[in-house]
């Protein structure tokens, strides 16, 4: 049996007066694509924050999160800092707020890149960083790199911003990439491109993916295994193909039915 990259055991998250996530357990193997499905208030985003050690101080975790052999719950900030970037990187929903509005895009990609090169003891001079940056920009299929590295976030489209955010995450060479609703703010045509890009990149680089979304169809295209969350608890988990075609839980069934109805509408009205 292979060692799990991420193992979450009995994770509970709570503030002073209420529980937000209850008794959650799941694992992600190296290179595996895992989906977290849930509507607003389900606790899916909090779970992802807990995994990357980014929980706000008002939320107290209990249970265990073992990422790449290291315990995250209760770990000191410094250890978490090195874990982020080394083991885990995150792409957020809204690339406009996730990027620094006052910094050229090239510089924003260069920062995590230089950190990784230093960490790996590789030369991190301007020329090396620039060379690696070109590779990354090619990898995320951004057009016109010359113009792009000098542009500011507001000067490029939403899809391009999200590609930059992906490039920044990849610059860290993480073992786990967390994508928290990365296509929700995008147009459908752009969403389609980003989904394809993410899938091929994690495959190519052997990175595990934790994909968080409320959109069942998108999750179904992206991942191998899914977990469905509601009100902070897991209601169902299993292979995506099983859960999305033959759900056992009634809540999952409601979601699947709803998604099918919009699909059916697209086939034309009778």
């Amino acid at each position, binding site marked *: 049996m292979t060692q799990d990259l991420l193992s979450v055991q009995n994770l509970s998250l709570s503030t002073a007066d209420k529980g937000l996530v209850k008794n959650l357990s799941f694992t992600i193997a190296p290179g595996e694509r895992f989906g977290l499905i849930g*509507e*607003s208030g389900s606790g899916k985003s909090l779970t992802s924050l807990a995994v990357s050690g980014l929980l706000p101080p008002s939320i107290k975790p209990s249970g265990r999160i073992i990422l790449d052999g290291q315990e995250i719950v209760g770990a000191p900030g410094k250890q978490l800092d090195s874990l982020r970037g080394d083991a885990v990187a995150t792409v957020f929903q809204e690339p406009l707020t996730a990027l620094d509005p006052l910094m050229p895009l090239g510089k924003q990609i260069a920062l995590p890149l230089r950190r990784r090169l230093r960490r790996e003891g590789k030369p991190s001079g301007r020329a090396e960083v620039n060379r690696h940056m070109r590779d990354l920009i090619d990898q995320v299929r951004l057009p016109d790199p010359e113009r792009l590295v000098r542009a500011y976030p507001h000067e490029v489209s*939403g899809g391009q911003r999200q590609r930059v955010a992906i490039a920044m995450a990849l610059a860290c060479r993480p073992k786990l990439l967390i994508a928290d609703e990365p296509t929700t703010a995008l*147009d*459908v*045509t*752009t*969403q*389609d491109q980003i*989904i394809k890009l993410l899938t091929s990149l994690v495959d190519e680089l052997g990175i595990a993916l934790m994909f968080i979304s*409320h*959109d*069942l*169809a*998108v999750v*179904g*295209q992206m991942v191998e295994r899914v977990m469905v969350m509601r009100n902070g608890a897991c209601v169902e988990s299993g292979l*995506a*193909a099983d859960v*999305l*075609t*033959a759900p056992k839980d009634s*809540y999952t069934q*409601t*979601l*699947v*039915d*709803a*998604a*099918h*109805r*919009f*699909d059916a*509408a*697209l*086939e*034309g*009205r009778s």
Partner: protein
Amino acid sequence: MTLLSVENVGFSYRSGKPVLEDISFTVPRGANVGLVGESGSGKSTLLRLLLGLDSPQKGRILFDGAPLEARSSGYMRSYRKRVQAVFQDPYSSLDPSHRILRIITEPLRALKIPGDHRQMATKAITAVGLAPDSLERYPHQFSGGQRQRIAIARAIVARPDLVLADEAVSALDLSTRIRVVDLFEEISEAMTMVFVSHDMGVVAALCDQIVVLDKGRIVEAGLTNDILRAPKHPYTQSLLASIPRMPAGS
């Protein structure tokens, strides 16, 4: 039988390139028409024109045979009695400082519609599936889906002929969205509706006709079934192909 007719409408903001160019389509009385487009398609601007919040620089909009005069307050008063709207974000479209009763009866008060306003509000709130005692509460006491129902109650309370919905279900969760779509379907039997949305699935579920917008122009318009089965314009084709579908059931 045409309720709303848009004729060669063009619009641009000050010192900008045109946001809308040569837009023409009609909305038959009783129909549900979807205006579909992605960001930058000009659909929000078009909606503002239909609501009389801006005036087109070119072309004209005819409502029930007469031109929409956005600058005439007398005309707008009678127009508002017949045309109401539901907006995208149920968290920002209800004033947090008022009770639901006040929010729902705003059109009745503003348009000086005679009658027992509380009774009319009770009827509207029941029609959208909420309990009458909701009227005494404040917006923050409701979930997103419930708020959108309240917004719909406000739009139908004055019994308009036409309801314009701006991405009215996009901000809702899937399980809530399907129920609000059902609600729209139900109330659309009594009135004409225009749905502005980027979500082809929702529009397909609700509308008999679709107008597809891209970069300020209409690229394709027609019956929903025809467009879904055989999209003619490459943009419509790629739009339909991009929509993620559920894995096929057993």
